[in-house]
């Protein structure tokens, strides 16, 4: 997992980039993720990784590392993002297998 492995052309990167900048897209992320992923042309591998918040796999596919914690915040909430927050725990679970 490194910024050096980022695939700028990965549709999932475009999706996350735009979802963060547009409230309506963010609502759709919550209510119609499948439709949103299809509209952005994600591959089956990308769709599967994103719907499961599989951060490790998303990274392998070329999602920019900076987006990975943001994926956890899209699923679990962005506010009060301390190390025990739901979003940070999701990160630990998916990326670090629960450690620390």
């Amino acid at each position, binding site marked *: 997992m490194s910024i050096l492995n980022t695939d*700028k052309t990965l549709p999932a990167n475009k999706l996350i980039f735009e979802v*963060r900048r547009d409230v309506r897209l963010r609502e759709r992320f919550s209510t119609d993720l499948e439709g949103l992923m299809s509209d952005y042309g994600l591959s089956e591998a990308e769709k599967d990784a994103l719907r499961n918040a599989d951060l490790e796999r998303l990274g392998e596919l070329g999602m*920019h*590392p900076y987006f990975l914690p943001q994926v956890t915040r899209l699923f679990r909430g*962005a*506010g*009060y*993002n301390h190390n025990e927050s739901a979003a940070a725990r999701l990160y630990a679970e998916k990326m670090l297998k629960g450690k620390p």
Partner: protein
Amino acid sequence: MAEIVSVLALAHAPGATGWLDRAPRHEQEALLAGYAAMGEKLRAARPDVIVGVANDHLLNFPLESIPDWCVGTAERWRGPAEWFRDWVNIPPYEVAGERELARHIVRESARRGFNLAFSDRLEFDDNWSVPLKFLTPDYGVPLVPIHMNCVVPPLPEPERCYAFGRTLAEVVRAWPARARVAVMGTGGLSHDPGGPKYFAVDEKFDRWFLELLASGDPQKVVREATIERMIAAGDGGTVELLAWIVALGAAGGGPAMADFYVPSVALRCGMGGVSWAP
């Protein structure tokens, strides 16, 4: 002609405003004291405008076309961007821009070999929201934000960042207005958003980097503080120190004094700041 009255660089990690209460008491106190001291120093220099340099964090630069630097040319800025508001826990604010200086920087840098992008529409996240909250809480000093690419390779190499800082200072001083200008780099120190060291800080690297900046030897800085070393100390975050190297260039390469350093696992970042003698 404008003069540069202050050059500083400091961390902008969102935990400082978003969840500081979760850090140990001694970390909270050291961080708040450090930011307060830097704010006092900055305000004592009575800047008419701050020229800031910081990571764009893939918030504005489209994946299709990422510039090394983009100068914000608007008359007025609003922050934080909606998606980051809860995260940084900072209420909406406005800060004036300085359009004429921003345009001057773009025009004159082009004559000196720097092809800067420019935009009237930049959204702000922690990059400006956190430092401004601590340094100029009344948002009373206009800001020319220069967003830079610190995270999507290829990145501008330290040598290029230093050269840009030198050029930026030269260009600012050539601005015909009588103005007092501060240059502020934000970002770093070690942190690893999106990587395996998300819940860690590389204190050894941070202290090494701060000592390197204190050396007053800019050639040594650009030679030793390589992108590879920054990446090794925290992949997606530590490279924000490239903005500090721009500040180093703007300061003319002299030694930087560390104002504070707090390696905070609770904030998931090595928090610190330095300033250069004017």
